[in-house]
């Protein structure tokens, strides 16, 4: 029996890994391309900023509108490279990015990467725990209630729509007011402790749980009717067993695809929720930077979070392949 070269490689002891490596490399290159496009896009947008930037920086440092001399303006221009032609600015920008230099904040006068690095962890923790919580809620609701005729099931569907529509800052506000003001259970300020994580996580998780729930419930109900489920019942599997062991795996697939996009949505929501609970994280920094028109800081945060999004998507795709082995790694 003759084998192709690829088959021979795969037959080697670690040859199987070559497929995984190749897939990863392909995705890494794709991700890098997206990131490059993201940085370019960001550069284009911020170069459209109206008004004189040197003037803006000087005014920001002084705290009010001033009338600087030409020499002062030239000095600022030279320092930030505003006088260079746009192509040169772009290349400098890319070059610095590759070295991890996101520039210096106009407002805080510290390297952007330093500011972001210090604050991004709480946000990631919040987003991640919200993702897990949302999935947990969605799966429990679906496995227990989907496809059933009882009124609880109908209520659950309606509830999921309501959950998906409510913005996280609204839920956060309600939770804050209820628990911290009326019931005085949780601390009002979201400290960096486990307790202070609960309310923000719930606020962020609920809308996502609604979304994921709607999507996987629809798929769940569809898959319940499939012949292979009947086959399993005909072998003696009970209803709950069928739901858990057979249908669930099929039903979560569209939700997994959704999770890639969800990371972006969670970041957006995290900004709002951090604001509601006065919690540490990127959100507060970002909002302050935006209102101060602090371009490097904002673009830095945006590019870094885009990077996290791309990475998250690669991981989500890999997870999808594990759950659904039908698709080859090719």
């Amino acid at each position: 029996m003759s084998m192709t070269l690829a088959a021979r490689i795969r037959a080697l002891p670690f040859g199987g890994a070559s497929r995984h490596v190749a897939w990863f490399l392909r995705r890494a290159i794709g991700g890098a391309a997206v990131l490059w496009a993201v940085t370019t896009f960001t550069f284009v947008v911020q170069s459209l900023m109206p008004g004189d930037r040197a003037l803006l920086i000087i005014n920001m440092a002084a705290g009010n509108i001033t009338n600087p001399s030409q020499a002062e303006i030239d000095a600022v221009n030279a320092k930030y490279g505003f006088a260079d032609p746009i192509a040169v600015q772009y290349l400098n920008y890319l070059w610095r990015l590759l070295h991890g230099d996101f520039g210096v904040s106009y407002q805080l006068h510290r390297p952007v990467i330093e500011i972001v690095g210090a604050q991004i962890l709480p946000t990631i923790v919040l987003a991640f725990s919200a993702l897990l919580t949302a999935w947990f809620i969605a799966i429990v609701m679906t496995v227990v209630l989907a496809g059933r005729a009882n009124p609880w099931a109908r209520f659950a569907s309606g509830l999921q729509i309501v959950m998906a529509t409510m913005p996280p800052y609204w839920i956060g506000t309600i939770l804050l007011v209820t628990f911290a003001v009326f019931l005085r259970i949780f601390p009002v300020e979201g400290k960096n402790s486990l307790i202070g994580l609960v309310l923000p996580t719930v606020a962020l998780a609920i809308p996502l749980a609604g979304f994921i729930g709607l999507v996987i419930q629809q798929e769940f109900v569809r898959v319940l009717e499939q012949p292979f489920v009947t086959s399993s019942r005909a072998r003696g599997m009970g209803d709950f067993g069928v739901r858990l062991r057979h249908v669930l795996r099929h039903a979560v697939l569209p939700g997994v695809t959704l999770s890639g996009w969800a990371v972006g949505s969670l970041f957006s929501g995290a900004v709002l929720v951090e604001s509601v609970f006065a919690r540490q994280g990127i959100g507060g920094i970002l909002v302050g930077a935006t209102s101060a028109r602090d371009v490097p800081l904002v673009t830095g945060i945006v590019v870094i979070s885009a990077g996290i999004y791309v990475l998250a998507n690669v991981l989500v795709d890999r997870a999808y392949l594990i759950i659904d082995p039908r698709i080859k790694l090719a």
Partner: protein
Amino acid sequence: MSRADDVGDPASRPLLRVDSLHVSFGRDARENAVVQGVSFSLAAGRCLAIVGESGSGKSVTARALVGLAGARAHVRAGALEYRGRDLTKLSERDWRRVRGKEIGFVLQDALVSLDQLRPIGKEVGEALVLHGEAGTRAELAERVIDLLKLVGIPEPALKSRQLPHELSGGQRQRALIAAALALDPQILIADEPTTALDATVQAQILELLNETRQRGKALILISHDLAVVSRMADEVLVMRHGEVVERGQAEQIFRDPQHEYTRRLLDAVPSALSRGTRLAPASAPALYAPLLYSSRDDDLRPTPTTANGPLLRAEGLVKRFRGPDGVVRTVVGGVSFDLHGGETLGVVGESGSGKSTLARLVLALERPDHGSVLLHGLPWTTVSERERQPRRRRISVIYQDPLSSFDPRWTVDRIIDDCLDGALQSSARRAERVDELLDLVALPTTYRRRRPLELSGGQRQRVAIARAIASKPSIIVCDEPVSALDVSIQAQVLDLLGDLKEQLGISYIFISHDLGVIHHFSDRVLVMSEGLVVESGDVHDVFRRPQEAYTQRLVAAVPRLRHARSTPERRLAE
């Protein structure tokens, strides 16, 4: 719930006894009886077949026997006994002990009847695990491999780790049967077990089921395919609209059917014997045809061509496709044929033979990689789409699934009107023509405002036919036009196509996997396998005296109606 099972003589006691089985859905005023008054008894080593068309209730009956009629079903019976044990009073928990262990169930199309995300071995071993007979991991794996060997799957150790889509259709179905036989149940119920399979594979699966019966199991076979039933069954139940219209020994039913419905069903099966006759009782649209040919100058006959040669000539057609894995497959590997005026050319082959792609090449919906097609003597596939557009009206197509070829937002009259000649300007005249076409395909003109989704399968196919002839084509390409229809509807549609052939002088390229249909309908036939024409010629010659090995295998594998009944009074076309 165990009564002593060995009371009385076990040999005479039936394995399964059903008396007045009744299944309905909904409650009170909206109660809808799907199965009524089904009675039979089944002994070990015997095969009972339940035959019927869609809506007959046969599948619901089968499922009710294992308590899987559905949560909303009300199942009542005078008696429903397995080995003397009353099944009507079983709790869900008790049912779970019966299913898989006493009664096994096999569904059709293993690709969707097996969990596609789980390896075959897991599915086959599931019953063992559920009923607590799995033992250790190694023991379970070994039993699974034994089961796969039992059903004739090669390399069982390797296959048990693979996913369903990695196996061939036949192997999948065998695995599904293995899963049902895992605990050696006394009764095996098979619901259309061979429907999704090619003829050659179908024969093997039926053989496997037969072996199971010979080992002492009882078999309940649900099928719409009368030929399959005639080969397998000892006893037959014929169902229609939820009721049993006839019941008896197989030989008796096929040789001398008592009920009118059974007779009609048997008459409707197309084969060599039915050639030249009508398959369905006459609601003949032929009655209306003469009215059309009152002195209108723009009637529905195709415009005659001046060319003398064949209507369509295909020369050396080759088409390759690149699959999702990057491998290039040759789907059509060099096909040539001629189509003459007034003849029907059948194209028969199993799945993957390239017949559908050939149809698309002939219709110029795909460009051939090599070779060409000449339509009415003029180049067809080698010219630009713009040049082809005005000529496209001369060749029409009918699909297996007409629904997807209709714009879901359009009504029937718009669908047909769309194909009428642009020269017909007056909207009144166009409306009349649409009515004429609906008459010709025996659809009431009140259906014009309906949408395709509101029609039945047979009605949709009629609309598709009306649309196909609206442009006055000289050739109609039919790609499995009756494969998705019930036998009786299939008969009507075949009769209709035959009538149109006679009245309008249309030539057909008729593609099907069903040899009986081809034999009934075609004049000449092309036998295709793996992209090549293996054999061609007059349909009688090819099917009665096949020369090539493949054709011989194909013809031998197709189950034919045993005990064919003598029918001196076959209705003839007018």
